[in-house]
């Protein structure tokens, strides 16, 4: 028997150690050297799942149902196989969108609905209260047992005189402890490194304490497990426990408990807090997935031995099996071991209560009270951080007191595990909206609300109210015969379903209505744009889609900063905004307009402190303009896509414009060129006409003024006049000819002509020129005929022009002209070469221009009109051939032209 003050002192010392651990972890976190950021601490902190239920309750349950305690640990083990897929996705979503609680998560998924946030919070609080009652009961029981045992009379006496006093003290101490622990300041991430470290420490203590009893019982009290279990067949009631049939509800109960535990490990508010919110690194999930089941295995290994030992040691009953863990060491006078066990139990209780109350106070504050206070605008303008802390502390006390009340109400009537299962069934209600929410975009807000509401109502009706009835708080008539004697509505045989135990019964009906309503309402529902956006963000969190929270309207940087500072404090806000500016590499001035990225950033920062739904309301209060209406969002989305479309078109248009401008410039340049050419042409023609006209006029005047001129002289002058007029005629003809060709008005008589004959004729026509200047003519003309489709007169004109040009530029006596005709694949080539002065390369192109005449020649006067080659070029081009010059100065000139050959097969 231990003195009360010893137990109290040791307990307080232990709580002091917890504070030291938390303090150390917080200091390390502030220094940037987190001690909790590793998979092992993460795993141990998840073991907050193992509460007084595990520590005391499992043994109690094993004493009546054999292996019936195990599904609660096999379920989490099984679902841990999916953590790497499922939990990682939840963590990613929570991290990206700064989600700080399970209510926040579900509300955020369904369009940041404050209704859902409040509903989830309500269910979470009501659902957790029995669980907290369980812890209070276990702790006060263990204290009393330790204090009075083995004097059962004293124990009974204390129960009778002040049955709930210990529990009340325990409640108050736990409230003070949780407040000191969990709500020292408002953290923008809602992460509590110190708490996590302390929880991990507690998990270690409770595992060690429980294993210590187990080892003591198995190896010291008995001679190993073989010895212990050899007693089982001796007693009928013990061997009966080794069959599944010992569990009320047998395999269906086994199945439903497994299912409930699978859901509870993820969706109990405190598990969500530890698994998701306090997670520092997604990758820790990998190791935790198999280490946590290992922890569960370890802490369950000795449950059956302790339980059987208890049953063997107290064969006549009279000792609550829920206290075997303590009473077995006490009856064997192992006081130190008993004290250690008590500390282990204290660990299990405090761990659960700290995390659960922190999680619940966050829920109540962020998701229930804040939105309401914001709506009625009942908040002070400054120092909201204090208000937040006040609300949280208040809710911690309220939740614990409710737990105490529930314990007083039904505590005596239920075993630990049965109380805990009421909570598990409530937590399972979060599974359908959350799981559907992250894998099915179609799940809608109204679907989630109706599913949750239906599930919660059925839970209350089939499990919570009967627990009141069993405690005698309301009439048990209601459970046995149904309300108003309506048998079909009996809460634990709803609609006459009487084949299940109460937990399976409730699990079946709540899941049926919850999932049913969620799906049926969702598929008949139309989601709001906000819901659609959030659904996509959640389901596709692993695909690279950017945050599309859009704000229209504007706010100044200073206003946003003030808003954030009101909730998280000036210093933290300054630091957050500085960090943001540094990250994006921009300068933030107080009077600047905040862009939508900064507004989104501020909203996320606030989400950390007050939840996403409240943050949205707060941010919209400082945004000028309409803040954010959904129509606005859709319009912006529409406009954005339109703008993208427009800019695309614009780009195309400007491309076309550049092209058109270039063409226009080109055309303009050509026009200017043509204009210049026309001017040149006119002046050249005038000049060319004036020269012969001047000489005709001069000689005519001489003839006119001198009638007595002798005949020889007169004849000479007249010849000059005739020659000059001939030149005039020729010039005029050529100008007309060129104009006709260029304007396309020339008449072409295309026919089949023999080019060989044509060249021979041309040479015949020009033979006198060769004779005059004694120039040698070389011919390389094939004997057989070569045909082409062409205008005979025009081609003759070209050939004669080229030959006479060649002759013209050759020196008399030594000049040589070579005319050749060659046959190519599809064309005939005529070449006229001379050994005259040649043409310099820079003139090759211009030589075919109108009025271009070779200038650097010995005689000062041009020998032709300058139109001959221009006309030749146009004639040849018209026939589809080409004409060119190969020459260099001093090496003679070679003019060649081609025209298409006549195709025989065509004819």
């Amino acid at each position, binding site marked *: 028997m231990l003195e009360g003050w010893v137990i109290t002192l040791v307990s307080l010392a232990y709580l002091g150690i917890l504070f030291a651990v938390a303090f150390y972890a917080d200091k390390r976190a502030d220094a940037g050297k987190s001690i909790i950021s590793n998979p092992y601490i993460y795993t141990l902190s998840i073991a907050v799942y193992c509460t007084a239920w595990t520590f005391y309750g499992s043994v109690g349950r094993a004493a009546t149902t054999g292996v019936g305690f195990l599904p609660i640990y096999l379920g989490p083990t099984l679902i841990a196989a999916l953590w790497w897929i499922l939990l990682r996705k939840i963590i990613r979503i929570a991290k990206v969108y700064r989600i700080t609680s399970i209510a926040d998560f579900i509300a955020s998924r369904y369009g940041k609905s404050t209704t859902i946030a409040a509903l989830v919070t309500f269910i979470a609080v009501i659902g957790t209260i029995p669980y907290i009652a369980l812890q209070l009961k276990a702790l006060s029981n263990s204290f009393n047992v330790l204090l009075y045992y083995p004097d059962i009379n004293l124990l009974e006496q204390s129960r009778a005189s002040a049955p709930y006093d210990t529990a009340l003290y325990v409640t108050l101490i736990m409230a003070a402890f949780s407040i000191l622990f969990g709500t020292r300041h408002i953290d923008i991430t809602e992460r509590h490194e110190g708490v996590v470290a302390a929880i991990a420490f507690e998990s270690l203590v409770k595992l060690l304490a429980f294993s210590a009893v187990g080892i003591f019982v198995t190896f010291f009290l008995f001679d190993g497990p073989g010895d212990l279990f050899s007693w089982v067949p001796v007693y009928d009631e013990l061997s009966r426990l080794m*069959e599944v049939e010992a569990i009320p509800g047998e395999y269906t109960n086994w199945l439903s408990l497994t299912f409930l535990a699978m859901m509870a490990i993820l969706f109990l508010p405190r598990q969500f807090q530890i698994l998701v919110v306090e997670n520092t690194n997604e990758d820790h999930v990998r190791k935790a997935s198999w280490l946590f089941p290992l922890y569960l*295995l370890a802490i369950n290994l000795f449950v059956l031995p302790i339980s059987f030992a208890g049953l063997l040691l107290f064969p006549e009953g009279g000792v609550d099996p829920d206290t075997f863990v303590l009473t077995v060491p006490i009856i064997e006078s192992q006081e130190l071991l008993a004290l250690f066990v008590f500390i282990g139990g204290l660990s299990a209780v405090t761990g659960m209560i700290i995390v659960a109350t922190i999680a619940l106070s966050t829920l109540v504050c962020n998701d229930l009270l804040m939105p309401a206070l914001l709506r009625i605008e009942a908040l002070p303008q400054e120092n909201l951080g204090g208000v937040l802390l006040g609300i949280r502390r208040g809710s911690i006390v309220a939740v614990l007191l409710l737990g105490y009340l529930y314990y007083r109400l039904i505590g005596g009537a239920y075993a630990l595990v049965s109380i805990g299962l009421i909570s598990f069934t409530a937590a399972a209600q979060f599974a359908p909206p959350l799981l559907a929410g992250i894998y099915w975009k179609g799940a809608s807000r109204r679907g989630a609300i109706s599913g949750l509401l239906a599930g919660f109502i059925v839970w209350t009706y089939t499990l919570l109210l009967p627990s009141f009835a069993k405690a005698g708080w309301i009439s048990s008539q209601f459970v046995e015969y149904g309300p108003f004697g309506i048998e079909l509505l009996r809460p634990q045989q709803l609609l006459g379903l009487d084949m299940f135990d109460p937990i399976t019964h409730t699990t079946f009906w709540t899941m049926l209505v919850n999932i049913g309503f969620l799906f049926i309402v969702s598929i008949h529902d139309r989601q709001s744009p906000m819901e659609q956006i959030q659904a996509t963000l959640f389901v596709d969190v692993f695909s690279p889609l950017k945050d599309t929270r859009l704000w229209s309207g504007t706010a100044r940087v200073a206003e946003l900063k003030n808003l954030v500072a009101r909730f998280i404090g000036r210093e933290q806000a300054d630091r957050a905004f500085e960090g943001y500016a540094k990250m994006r590499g921009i300068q933030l001035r107080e009077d600047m307009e905040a862009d939508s990225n900064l507004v989104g950033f501020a909203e996320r920062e606030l989400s950390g402190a007050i939840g996403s739904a409240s943050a949205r309301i707060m941010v919209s209060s400082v945004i000028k303009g309409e803040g954010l209406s959904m129509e606005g969002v859709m319009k912006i989305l529409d406009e954005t896509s339109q703008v993208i479309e427009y800019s695309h078109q614009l780009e195309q248009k400007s491309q076309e414009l550049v092209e058109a401008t270039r063409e226009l410039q080109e055309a303009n340049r050509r026009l200017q060129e043509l204009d210049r050419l026309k001017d040149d042409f006119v002046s050249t023609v005038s000049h060319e006409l004036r020269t012969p006209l001047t000489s005709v006029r001069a000689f005519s005047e001489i003839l006119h003024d001198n009638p007595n001129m002798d005949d020889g002289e007169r004849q000479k002058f007249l010849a000059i006049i005739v020659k000059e007029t001939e030149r005039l005629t020729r010039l005029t003809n050529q100008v007309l000819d060129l104009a006709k060709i260029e304007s396309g008005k020339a008449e072409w008589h295309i026919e089949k002509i023999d080019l060989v004959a044509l060249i021979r004729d041309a040479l015949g026509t020009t033979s006198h020129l060769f004779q005059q200047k004694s120039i040698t003519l070389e011919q390389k003309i094939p004997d057989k005929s070569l045909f082409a489709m062409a205008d005979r007169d025009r081609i003759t004109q070209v050939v004669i022009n080229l030959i006479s040009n060649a002759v013209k530029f050759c020196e008399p006596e030594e000049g040589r002209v070579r005319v050749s005709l060659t046959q190519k694949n599809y064309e005939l080539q005529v070449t006229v070469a001379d050994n005259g002065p040649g043409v310099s390369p820079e003139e090759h192109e211009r030589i075919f221009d109108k009025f271009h005449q070779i200038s650097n020649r010995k005689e000062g006067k041009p020998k032709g009109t300058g139109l001959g080659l221009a006309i030749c070029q146009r004639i040849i081009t018209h026939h589809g051939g080409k004409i060119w010059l190969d020459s260099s100065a001093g090496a003679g000139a070679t003019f060649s032209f081609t025209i298409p050959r006549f195709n025989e097969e065509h004819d």
Partner: protein
Amino acid sequence: MAELKRQKERLIALLLVGFLALNYPILSLFSSTAQLFSLPVLYVYLFSIWVLFIVLLAAILEKKERAAPDKSTLPGDSA
């Protein structure tokens, strides 16, 4: 990517097998008062399955880490 998908499939398969092994009717085969190594057969069965499940789970999850640096083991892996 294919390796990740394979890992997911293995995890889901493990969950299903574990769920079947730990429920009716397979569980009922071991629900008896008989003893194995002087231990109750149901107790032995449940904890053996539990250990096996954890070992397989660890093997699946930790495999990628070991296989990732050494690419040459991957082809044989899928066989």
